[in-house]
């Protein structure tokens, strides 16, 4: 890095993105958690490798009567009383590294890796959908003002004041029982697109409300007036002028919303209203694991720790991005299942 080139100085030849990157890289905590997040992603991506070459089993394969030969002794994967085997670490050559999950005798480590794929997939995809919809709604409301704004803003207010977890449970269960059919869209009850849809819909206000506020203030700025004077139409104003200025806010919200949505998914799945069998996520693994908490505590605690590490790293990365992209900004979206954004912090 060129130390003579002070960031933000008038003579800087580097663009704002480059400056933001430099600022982000100087934030050791954020970089550390970024590395951790990539490690988690690699961990879940490696699921087939571990399953095929180390554990030699699939995430849903049961081993009710199998026996392991470890150091010359024979260990049952599931005992006659239905008690699953504990963590073997590398004693059985990587088989049942974290033990078996229940009387079905499924390999917990393999399930952890595959479950993480589903948790992360749902988190990222629902965050993409939520952010896209929220930005479009925020742009329309903030740009057109008048009745368009009234309708969108009031709808968001109502959605905001609803008990989202309860409605998410209701929608999740209802769709899990019978699937969905609206025009060309058809989902079966067990599809992981059901929780994705539920989460995407109910988290829109957390992003759309602050975006709307920012659009309202951006549309008063000189560069928008200049574009209007040049004869720009509403589409160019919204997507060509205002949207690029929202980029940093959107990136931050997207990151934080992955974390928020993963917690939402875990809560739904834990209660049985999210990911349905045979699929599993970290949330469903915890709900299976707590039943054996007394004898096999790791079954519930390890998936919980994975969720915590992922959410924590995304929150720290999000905060780091906010500081790097716009040091003055105070907008925030709080990741929590209670799901209320502090009005005080957004003002």
């Amino acid at each position, binding site marked *: 890095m060129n130390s003579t080139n002070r960031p933000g100085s008038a003579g800087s030849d580097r663009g704002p993105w480059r400056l933001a990157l430099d600022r982000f890289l100087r934030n050791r905590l954020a970089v550390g958690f970024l590395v951790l997040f990539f490690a988690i992603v690699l961990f879940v991506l490696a699921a087939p490798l571990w399953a095929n070459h180390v554990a030699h089993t699939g995430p849903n394969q049961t081993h009710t009567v199998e026996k392991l030969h470890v150091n010359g002794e024979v260990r049952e994967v599931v005992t006659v009383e239905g008690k699953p085997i504990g963590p073997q670490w590398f004693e059985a050559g990587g088989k049942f590294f974290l033990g078996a999950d229940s009387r079905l005798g499924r390999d917990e480590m393999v399930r952890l890796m595959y479950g993480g794929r589903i948790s992360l997939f749902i988190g990222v995809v629902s965050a993409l959908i939520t952010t896209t919809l929220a930005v479009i709604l925020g742009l329309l409301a903030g740009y057109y003002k008048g009745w368009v704004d009234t309708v969108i803003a009031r709808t968001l207010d*109502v959605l905001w004041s609803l008990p989202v977890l*309860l*409605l998410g449970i209701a929608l999740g269960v209802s769709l899990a029982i019978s699937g969905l059919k609206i025009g060309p869209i058809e989902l079966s009850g067990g599809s992981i697109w059901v929780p994705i849809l539920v989460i995407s819909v109910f988290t829109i206000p957390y992003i759309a409300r602050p975006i709307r506020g920012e659009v309202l203030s951006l549309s008063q700025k000189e560069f928008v007036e200049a574009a209007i004077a040049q004869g720009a139409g509403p589409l160019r104003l919204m997507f060509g002028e205002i949207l690029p200025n929202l980029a940093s806010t959107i990136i931050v919200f997207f990151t934080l919303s992955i974390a928020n949505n993963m917690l939402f998914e875990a809560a739904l799945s834990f*209660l049985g209203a999210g990911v349905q069998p045979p699929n599993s996520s970290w949330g469903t693994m915890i709900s299976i694991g707590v039943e054996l908490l007394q004898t096999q505590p790791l079954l519930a605690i390890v998936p919980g720790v994975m969720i915590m590490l992922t959410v924590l790293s995304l929150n720290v990365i999000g905060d780091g991005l906010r500081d790097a992209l716009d040091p003055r900004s105070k907008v925030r979206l709080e990741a929590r299942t*209670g*799901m209320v954004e502090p009005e005080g912090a957004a003002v």
Partner: protein
Amino acid sequence: MLRFIVRRLVGMVFVLFIVSVLVFVIFNVIPNSPPAQRLAGKNATPVLVKSIEEEWGFDEPLPVQYATMMKKVFTGELIQYSPRIPVNEQIEEGIPATFSLSIGAGIIWLGFGLLLGYLSAVRAGGKLDKLLTVVAIAGISIPVFLIAPVLIYFLTYKLEIFPNGGYVKLTSDPWEWLTHLILPWFTLAVLSIGFYSRVLRSNMLDAMNEDYVRTARAKGLSERQVMTRHVLRNSLIPIITLFGLDFGATIAGTAIITEVLYNIPGVGYYAAHAISNLELPPIMGVTLYGAFFVVFFNAVVDIGYAYLDPRVRLGASAQ
């Protein structure tokens, strides 16, 4: 003030109407299977399905079906079908446990949140502040379904300090009531303690730069008086609003998960069991009653807030 209250109550009724329509749409319109079959539950006989179909009038137009559903909810005729029990009785039975859990947790998180936030703000930048920052960030990121298993495993199973889940009525044995609830309270409160301490800290740091604080110092008030009477007091109003919103959201949110983890037979526990048995009427009932509570509490908080701060009452015209 009266006009504000009326306006707020009208808004509340409107939101509740929207919730009920949403619930109706979620259960009776969107799903892709015969509604009577869904309501009847897993092991329904054709006779039961037939009778539910007539009872709910699923061949009628949608608005009539909606009216039927609402009538059932208001008259307490909403029942779960296997076994046949009225939903509202089950919910009423669960309310004392749910409220014991939520109110206790609320008191703990408000108390600790304010205490830690105040200490952080007064010693901003110091060692204690930095430690509390780390604790708060960790607290915000730990989901209840990690805290609870860890606490239960170590404190209940290993050290045997606390009883293993369940709930004892306050009226039958206050001491047992307390020991059964301590872990659930803290489980529910940890997240918010971290969060509230951060919010109070930043509010207080903002308030310290205000003119009235300089005036108070210039008057010769002691540092402690400046902090408690001027800075803290003015920083509390946003916290109270936040608490109102969070408290409702907690009862209808994380409290459900906590009840399941600790086997507390509250409303959320009832709903969770209905989920695993795929019983829709209880979920319908709990969603509607939960929504009523959340919306009602939000309205009460708004009115209280307006009473404390005239700017809110007058709306935009005051600015």
